């Protein structure tokens, strides 16, 4: 099935293209709009972006697979990403990850059976002052404890 952005997002993409001297510069913004729309970037979406920006599909795939925030498959409704880099590790990110794995009963990369959560690890998110931390979708949660994690997940489900 051919991919299309919503009319609103398509308008946004046109405005973004106009902001740059070179159309190709709109590649990352276009991928963001696609991901906002469907939660991931499908092969059909790649074809759409390539056509809209007048680029070879290979170039779109090239960027897509380089930037780690773009998902190539459908994830759970919420994407939990636990920072495991040095500052979070020094303040207990291993325990946070262990707790989440047990609570959700999934491994890193897995999605809960009800489709609510996908669990990932992630590199430093620039919130080292609130370590250990995680990002859920695009929101930061800092100074994590088991009680706090329970609360966050309850409010998300």
């Amino acid at each position: 099935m051919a991919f299309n952005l919503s009319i609103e997002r398509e308008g946004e993409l046109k405005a973004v293209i106009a902001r740059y001297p070179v159309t190709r510069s709109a590649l990352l913004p276009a991928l963001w709009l696609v991901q906002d729309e469907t939660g991931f970037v499908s092969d059909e979406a790649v074809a759409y972006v390539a056509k809209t920006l007048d680029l070879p599909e290979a170039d779109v795939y090239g960027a897509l697979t380089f930037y780690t925030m773009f998902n190539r498959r459908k994830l759970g409704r919420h994407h939990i990403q636990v920072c495991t880099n040095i500052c979070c590790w020094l303040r207990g990110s291993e325990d946070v990850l262990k707790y989440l794995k047990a609570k959700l009963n999934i491994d890193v990369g897995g999605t809960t059976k009800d489709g609510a959560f996908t669990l990932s690890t992630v590199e430093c998110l620039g919130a080292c002052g609130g370590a250990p931390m995680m990002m859920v979708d695009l929101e930061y949660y800092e100074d994590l404890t088991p009680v706090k994690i329970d609360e966050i997940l309850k409010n998300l489900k």
Partner: protein
Amino acid sequence: MDQILTHNFKVMNAARLNAYLGRDGYRSIQKIFGMQPEAVINEVKASGLRGRGGAGFPTGTKWGFVPKNLPLQPVLCINADESEPGTFKDRAIMERDPHLLIEGIIIAAYAIGAHEAFIYIRGEYFRPYLILQAAVAEAYETGFLGNNILNRGFKLDVTIHRGGGAYICGEETGLITSIEGFRGYPRLKPPFPAVKGLYGRPTVVNNVETLAALPYIINEGAAKYASVGTEKSKGSKLMSVAGHVNKPGVYEIPLGMPLITFLNEYAGGVWKNRKLKAVIPGGSSVPVMTAVEARDTLLDYESTAQHGTMLGSGGMIVMDETADMVMALKVLSDFYHHESCGQCTPCREGTGWINKILKRIIDGQGQKDDLEMLLKIADNMVGRTICVLADALAMPVKSFITKFRKEFEDRIKG
């Protein structure tokens, strides 16, 4: 010392234009329009301001590299891709005082003659992005940005460009390549961006914190800014401190402050009444220091260099006596291996080999030559690649193994 960068951090709604204007915001813009661009550059040169992204290169000098009277118009890129582990100071500026950044952008753009500026913000900084976007919109509405700023005939458009999750895009040529719509591969220098950068045009890439210092320099004068700090490291610096301390966070200090004073009086000292074991003073890629080395180090470019490390981005990582240095290095190698863009063999393979060897040491499978092999690989990575990502892992490898060798040997012996 005046709060040069943080004077609005505790002000309610400082991110909104009204509050910012009420705090004397955008005052420097009137002033620069009465100056020649060259005079602005000279003022910044005289202030001694150095790039706060990590390299510490003099800002005015960098601006001076932009060729004059070229047919191609210069561009300003703002590096807000803050991704160096331990560093979270630019986020503080963008969230708490975004108009200060925009004011700095206008000054820099005027100085180099740029009419387009691109803020490259890391994709994960979504909240700061929204705050910044709202501030940019306010600046357009009130005539601080746009075709005819304050009716003084200067045009400047600011576009915020969100990254997609790639550490390497914080490297200035990687950042440029990424804005152009490619994988964020760094480029060989020369040509330097000042001559041939974004879209082949003369380009200046400045860090968020660097730009945020400009309004003060223009308003108060270079001499007053230069009266803060040391002879060669002038002005103030934002330090972000994390790890085993009581009060992690972002603090503004005069350059030259003793590291231990900062640790105890700002960061609240080492947590849990434990002893200090190690400090990484300037983001995860600079060499680690032992507690003894940290004792008489000052937080400025020269003193950190004399002690074999760097001030870098000012992202300080503190480790107490319980920290496992082998595991710490393994964690760092996970990061640099993951973030190597893959263009250069010494980096792509070297970060992977280092990561593999450290993993086997952690798993109890270390071999007796492993430490020599790690050091040899690190030696073969330094200075042999397009950008310094390879060095950014090689330096921790060398410093961790040299300074905490016994811990590594014990782990290998099992």
